[in-house]
């Protein structure tokens, strides 16, 4: 009985660890403490899911007018441009996100990965590798 219990406990812990690996920490936390910004980011996310990129960008820009230093919002906007295959914009927006990311290592990581992807798409393999290295720091 005790054995089963401890095994179950281990299983739960392992499952928890695994799930933590799947979603990066910054995506689990709310994008902002401001309900107005959260609402706009949610709208943007559902627009992205439906490939309505122009609408998503409009909502995110509106959110950024409320919280212009929110690194998460800049990252979301970079993802919209990535979805539209506008790689130069996506890269620059990710850099903008990084400039506000401060100690959010997970977000920095995501931004550098996104930058690496943009550079790869543009054929800049050296730049992509450099970005990937930065993402691992």
């Amino acid at each position, binding site marked *: 009985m005790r054995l089963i219990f401890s095994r179950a406990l281990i299983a739960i812990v392992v499952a928890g660890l695994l799930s933590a690996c799947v979603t990066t920490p910054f995506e689990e936390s709310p994008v902002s403490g*401001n*309900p*107005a910004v*959260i*609402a*706009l980011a949610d709208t943007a996310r559902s627009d992205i899911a439906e490939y309505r990129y*122009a*609408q998503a*960008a*409009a*909502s995110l*820009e*509106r959110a*950024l*007018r*409320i919280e*212009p*230093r929110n690194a998460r919002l800049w990252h979301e*906007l970079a993802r919209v441009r990535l979805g539209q295959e506008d790689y*130069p*914009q996506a890269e*620059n*927006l990710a*850099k*903008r996100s990084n*400039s*506000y990311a*401060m100690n959010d290592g997970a977000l920095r990581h995501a931004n550098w990965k996104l930058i690496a992807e943009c550079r790869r798409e543009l054929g800049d393999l050296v730049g992509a590798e450099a970005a990937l290295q930065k993402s691992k720091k």
Partner: protein
Amino acid sequence: MTLLLLMLALAGYLVYLDHTVRQQFEGRRFALPARVYARPLELFVGKKLEPGQLVAELKMLRYSANDDPTRPGQYSYKGHTVSVHVHDFTFWDGAQPARRLSVNFSRGAITALTDFQTGRNIDLTRLDPVPIGGIYPAHNEDRVLVRLEQVPNSVVDALIAIEDHNFYNHWGIDPRGIARAFYTMVTGQRVQGGSTLTQQLVKNFYLTPERTITRKFNEILMALLLELHYDKRDILETYINEVYLGQDGNRAIHGFGLASRFYFNRSIEQLELHQSALLVGMLKGPTYFDPRRHPKRALERRNLVLAEMQRQGLITQMELDAVRYRGLDVSDNPGVGASAHPAFLELVHRQLRRDYFEDDLRSEGLQIFTTLDPIVQAAAEHSLSRRLDQIERARRLPADLLEGAVVVTSALNNEIHAIVGGRRPRFEGFNRALDAERQIGSLMKPAIYLTALSKPDRYTLVTPLDDSKLVWKEAGTDDWSPENYDKEFHGEVPLRMALANSYNVSSARLGLALGVDEVIETAHLLGVEREMPPFASTLLGTVNLTPLEVAQMYHTLATGGFHMRLGAIREVLTADGKPLQRYPLKVEQTIGAAPAYLITAALQDVVREGTARRLSQYLPPGINAAGKTGTTDELRDSWFAGYTGDRVAVVWVGNDENKNTRLTGSSGAMTVWGDMMAQLGPEPLVPPQPENVERVRIDVATGLRADEGCSDTVELPFIQGSAPEKTAPCASQSTGKKIRSWFQRVIGKD
């Protein structure tokens, strides 16, 4: 034979007229102006906003104060709560219905936002945007189209009673009216009167205003043809949209749709009987019966219309009695002509011309949503006008010697918040913010210092610069020997102090060491698109830029090196509210984050201890604004460009004929800048510190590392690895002191 030819000619003419009438009536779409709106005011909990600012915005929207705001367009303001019934409005991202909101305030921010009806919290909503003008068709005709179904019966009844009571029965003309007209003409008077609504419409639509017999003849024929082809409702609807109903400055008010808004601040559906009667009464002479300028006349005319309606049985005696003693109920805010902010509107128009045909802008009824912030625009206009008046009086300068311009943008995205083109902002004249190309003087210097700070192996904020006499020889030009403003040389000065004090000689020498071309390249990276001559004097700003170009340059500094092309438009919608185009935010990092961070620190020193230190008279401590003064030869131009945490602003003060203004950058433009920013409650400037930047405490006297042992120190940012390695003599960690402190610890006393 002659008769036959005559008949043939007449028939041919009729065919021609018929063609004209049909083609124009059917092909005719009313030319609708593009409508231009300010940014909508966003409302959410936590928003920095004073209740007074909300009320000011509502007044600009012509909302009326009402203890119980049950109808859209009304608001009440009691204690810390503004209750407002917002209009419905279609934005780029969809329609927002009318609803009543309660907005609570505390300490300059919104603390609660609820739906009055449901009591539920609202995350985010916005007011309808303030209209700031239009881009108008020929003759500045403005109108809001309405369909006949929207028009209240009272308007139609009054119209028919007064202008053409036989409208539904005639064929376009009224034989008795025409007989009367011919009679007056035969007796030598001018041709007048006797027109049916159809004839009036034909006159406005197809004919020139002269009064001749041929014209009258054409009018009759065309009226008959119009009635032959179209039913009464089409003709009536067109008439209601066409007629001229007054003047707002240079803007002509056409149609009942716009007139209801212009005179009563209501949509046409909301018109009451007495208001309908007034508008119809005004048709006889919109200027003569203008209810704002001639209320007594207008009231008499209105009551005449009402009495006539009662006489013809269109309203009862009771209805008449119920309204005849009512006031005119005209809204107070009469509008401001084509635009209250012509300078901003001009920028919008220029930007639109890149993407649209001029004809479409003036006829398609596009809805243009701009970035103008009315609160900022008002502060900018006010500060410029007021400060220039004050300066002229205080310095006994000739009145109107000075002119000026202001550009204000966000420091965090690419939006332009305000444009002032001169000290008389309503005046649609030379737009100095966009078109005055003036020498920028020392405003160029940050490009030199930024170029230097991008080379951390050679330059840091404390690198000593040489401010001794300089003679520069260049083939093809005269020797160049710049002087400092105080006519002195300052020997060796730390880099940041050379910028803070705007020393010309050390700055020029630095620029020459870096290369003029490289400095110009930095200016381009900052967003100056104009070509600049590669001469040494360019380093000290002998290039001409407009205030808007300067704003672009300093904007890139403010964003920490991210170039974003400044824009005035967010979105464009079609006349019926369908999204047409959006101008998205585009960013490009053109300057490294670390050098950008350092140059901002240096520009903060300009304000803290340099040429702009008197800004502290305007701004509360802790804002840590960054900025640069600029003064040109013979005091022709006074500039200030700077930024806070949330806004970038550039002010130019000068004289249109290049006269001496007796002002420096800090005694002229900077005072306008400070006065304006103070009104706007600026956010402190705290740029995010890049990873590869460290802060090091520096001994001011030596420019070496300091610690608690040093009395006069400053903490400065350095790109990693570039900070001085040596410690200042004053530092307790300097080698001599280390031994002494060890000794003190051992001995146990000082």
